[in-house]
């Protein structure tokens, strides 16, 4: 049995493999400052003034246990370099100053989103340290806290559970990771973000993307989250029946999710089949047999360049024998990806052998070592025809670490699917990133006291919570406003204004939606995407429309003013057109028209309207002018 291609998979195919997926969405908040220090938020720059160097060591969790990921990262012995820009980073991010108090603005946004999800809110928040020994945070941990649990959103005919909503600081951006040296840029470090964790309630890759999209729109509807590249990032958890929860990290775009989750389901499916094959061959965790040997001397004369060069530079080669694994390194795991990649990834990440290829193996059809050399190696490690050999090269310590990781990963294949976090790759497949961390990496942050969230404060916040956008859309459908404004209006911070305009001020729904969404969009197209329309000015604009101080035709110039930063007030409007002035203008225009040769007399009204509106645009409702013209024309030529 094989896994169908992506385009041929149906809902029932996914049901058959027991596809289950959940999301962890990280969304940066629109605050002025960072979460635990007073550095400006959202200021990014690739340039830096200084670098510092750190190493990470594992520490115990609160319950007295070491975390698996922590130990793995310690095995890698990485030198971590942080690039520091004075403008975006202070001594807090460098871990040379204790945290300042939690940013209130960020906390309130998180509370608002928690209420939007209908979460059970936490009465007293406790800051935790979540260990990250990959160096992505200079402290070695992320300060994070839970503000609510057990929320939900409607989806199709069911609900998707929000397991928890966290508030935490963002990590560094990785610049490079070569050998034992990893470099990070620190500008994004410390940015406030919320983490939304859903239950594994999604049943197909498409559902995962759809729920991701709903959640994205929901948080954006608060108007208090950041947008743009990197402002929202998804981690996707995937498992199939018999498989393991595997986390695909840092998916930058929601449309990438379906293919990525499909690939992971396929990987798990194929790894489970690989296990069955191993068991069929009598290889289990108990009977698993492997050995490794240094074979540098045997390969002194090899013509295979990567190994030849390595040995010339004084590196060592290790040969690993996997008993009974013949042909299994070519076992397909993902599209165009094989079990050998699982091993190569581990060797790359844990043994820090980052130059590829970092392993070769005897199942490979491509030209590597000469067959006589494979024969020599086979002899050296006493291999039979049923076995597979893997060659790893690097400095003595790394080559040994690579050999031992190879054995560890191969043995895991007899057990099932290791709990891992995996990187999303561009081709839709994924690669090993690290062992999946467990709750053992949590530790209370002793630098900050717990913080009480009173019922009163929550009540206050709840008045600002926007109506869920899917409810807005339902209402817009009833109102029959233009199709293209529904979606953007439903998540716009102006959706509240729209409601007031329609329900309280009696403005036509179409006019209000056009004024709030369509026309501002047109202005933004001309002036650039970064223009903003302040709620206060937009409210004044709607009120002016309500009182007929502003006409539909006058909206656009006003919006241009607002976009260029001027507050809108009614006083700044040109005075409304009086009846006498309209009379005058119509008469004057009629005069102009009478002196012009008109080829299509039936278009006289239209021409006259154009002349009048040229003079009075924005100061008079088009319909009033049109009525007047009709009446005047009727008078002059009855």
């Amino acid at each position, binding site marked *: 049995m094989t896994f169908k291609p992506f385009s041929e998979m149906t809902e029932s195919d996914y049901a058959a493999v027991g596809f289950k997926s959940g999301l962890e969405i990280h969304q940066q908040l629109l605050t002025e400052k960072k979460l635990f220090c007073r550095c400006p938020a959202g200021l990014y720059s690739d340039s830096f003034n200084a670098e510092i160097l750190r190493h990470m060591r594992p520490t115990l969790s609160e319950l007295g246990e070491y975390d698996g990921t922590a130990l793995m990262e310690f095995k890698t012995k990485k030198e971590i370099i942080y690039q520091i820009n004075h403008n975006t980073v202070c001594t807090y991010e460098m871990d*040379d100053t204790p945290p300042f108090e939690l940013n209130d603005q960020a906390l309130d946004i998180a509370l608002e989103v928690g209420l939007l999800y209908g979460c*059970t809110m936490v009465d007293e928040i406790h800051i935790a340290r979540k260990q990250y020994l990959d160096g992505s945070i200079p402290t070695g941990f992320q300060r994070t806290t839970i503000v609510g649990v057990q929320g939900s959103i409607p989806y199709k005919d069911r609900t998707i559970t929000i397991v928890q909503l966290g508030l935490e600081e963002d990590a560094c951006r990785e610049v490079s990771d070569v050998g034992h040296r990893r470099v990070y840029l620190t500008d994004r470090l410390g940015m406030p973000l919320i983490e939304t964790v859903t239950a594994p309630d999604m049943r197909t890759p498409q559902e995962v993307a759809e729920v991701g999209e709903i959640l994205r729109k929901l948080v954006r509807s608060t108007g208090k989250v950041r947008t743009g590249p990197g402002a929202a990032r998804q981690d996707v958890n995937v498992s199939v029946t018999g498989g393991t929860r595997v986390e695909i990290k840092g998916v930058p775009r929601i449309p990438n999710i379906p293919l990525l989750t499909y690939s992971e389901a396929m990987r798990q499916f194929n790894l489970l089949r690989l296990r069955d094959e191993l068991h069929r061959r009598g290889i289990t965790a108990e009977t698993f047999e492997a050995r490794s040997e240094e074979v540098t001397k045997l390969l002194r004369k090899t013509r295979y360049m990567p190994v030849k060069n390595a040995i010339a530079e004084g590196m060592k080669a290790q040969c690993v024998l996997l008993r009974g694994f013949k042909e299994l390194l070519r076992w397909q795991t993902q599209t165009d990806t094989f079990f050998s990649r699982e091993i190569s990834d581990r060797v790359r990440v844990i043994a820090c052998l980052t130059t590829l290829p970092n392993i070769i193996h005897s199942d490979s059809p491509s030209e590597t070592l000469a067959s006589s050399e494979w024969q020599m190696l086979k002899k050296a490690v006493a291999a039979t025809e049923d076995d597979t050999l893997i060659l790893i090269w690097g400095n003595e310590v790394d080559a040994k670490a690579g050999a031992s990781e190879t054995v560890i990963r191969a043995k895991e294949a007899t057990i099932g699917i290791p709990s891992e976090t995996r990187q999303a790759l561009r081709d839709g497949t994924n690669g090993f990133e690290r062992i999946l961390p467990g709750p053992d990496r949590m530790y209370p942050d002793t630098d900050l*006291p717990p913080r009480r969230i009173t019922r009163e404060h929550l009540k206050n916040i709840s008045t600002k919570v926007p109506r869920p956008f899917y409810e807005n859309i339902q209402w817009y459908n009833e109102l029959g406003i233009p199709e293209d404004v529904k979606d953007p209006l439903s998540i716009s911070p102006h959706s509240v204004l729209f409601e007031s305009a329609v329900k309280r001020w009696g403005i036509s729904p179409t006019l209000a939606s056009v004024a709030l969404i369509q026309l501002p969009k047109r202005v933004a197209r001309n002036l650039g995407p970064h223009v903003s329309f302040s709620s206060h000015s937009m409210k004044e604009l709607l009120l002016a429309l309500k009182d007929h101080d502003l006409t539909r035709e006058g909206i656009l110039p006003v919006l241009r003013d607002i976009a260029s930063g001027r507050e809108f007030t009614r006083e700044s409007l040109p005075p409304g057109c009086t009846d006498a002035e309209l009379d005058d203008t119509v008469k004057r225009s009629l005069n102009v028209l009478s002196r012009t040769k008109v080829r299509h007399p039936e278009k006289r009204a239209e021409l006259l309207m154009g002349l009048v509106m040229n003079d009075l645009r924005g100061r008079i409702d088009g319909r009033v002018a049109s009525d007047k013209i009709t009446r005047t024309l009727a008078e002059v030529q009855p």
Partner: protein
Amino acid sequence: MTAPDNYRGYRGEALDTLKSFGAMVWSDVEITTDTGSFTGIVLPRSETADPLHIVLKLRSGYNVGVAAEGVRAITVHGRKEAHYKIPEKEFPYDPAKPRVKLLGTGGTIASRLDYRTGAVIPAFSPGELYGSVPELADICNLETEKLYGVFSENMGPEQWIGTAQAIGREIAKGVQGIVIGHGTDTMHHTAAILSFMVQNSPVPIVMVGSQRSSDRPSSDAALNLMHSVKTAAESDIAEVMVCMFGPTSDQYGLLHRGTRVRKMHSSYRSTFRTIGDIPIAMVSREKITPLRQDYKRRRKDQDVIINTAFEEKVSIVYYYPNMKPDIIDSLIDNNYRGIIIAGTGLGHVNKPLYPSLKRAHEKNIAVYMTVQTLWGYVQMYVYDTGRDMMELGVVPSANMLPEVAYMKLGWALGQTDDLAKVRQIMMTPVAGEITEREPSNGYLIFQGGIPEVEEFISRYRR
């Protein structure tokens, strides 16, 4: 577990709520409130926290506080007690390696979480140290002894004297080096007094601590420990030193002379600086690089002199403009025997203090002048005011740091009442506390923002 331990830290409403539903600390529970429910383990509560909330560790590992007033029911499913323990392994013995003794006084060099206060408390044992920093076994055979378990602000004469005596005992036993684990806040005070109380040491005496507690992955504790143990085991510098990070990066440590070192930043790793001179050496995991040659060398003998005299009635007065004479008077009236003034500039105080200084002199109180600029010498001849003060018996104490002068005056007054003899002890340098000259690179505080400094910083990782 005793009864109160079952509700550790809880009081008031939260305590009553736990009791009424039969739950206690470490109970595995589901708490139903008027708005929802939470599942997890009841944790002890910090004693300083309010009596209104119950702390739960959720399955995800996060802790949350649940308001007792909203609790409708608690269902107890079981119990899971945490044992926070660093894995203890026996420190391996290698006859080829030197013997180093680690004396513990407290501080964050080794620490663990305290549920009672929610803060970190010091912990210490050789097995624990080996469990968390196994690299130490590559350097030496380490023995440890916990002398005290106090934060450094609680160190005082009793601990200083005890530590000096312990050093004497260890040298007599023939150890090749001594490391003293100490909180960083007053490490330089202790380094100064040990420089006076322990004379003529044949082996290195290295004080060490950490600015980030060892329960953090980025802690400087492990590297500081390795550096200090290496210095104690291998260096030929037989002085009292402070060994802490040079730069904030995990690169190398500096060995500061015990009488010239000072903590200069409340939280930076590279907080310790040698003032008015350069450090004795740099130390990395690979090597010790002396920066100067005028240090006392390691010897084979055990001829150390321990002199633990100390007079407690000594004070430092940090002068500020508008200081009133009653500050000095109160010291006089409370029978203080010595006063260190940290004066402005070259060593000045305002005129209204003069009568009180005169009174101190008449009461046989030793008054010494230091500078609050920290860098530079006291020079009381430049201005008339300085000359006036010397007339009043105020003794300029060259470039002794105020804290060092405080320690030395306590030590001198502990030995004699005779102010002339005190003066002789004070003004005769025994461990570099007064230097004859200040090298031009003894005062380097680079000013950030200036192009050449920025260029330097960007070129060298710091």
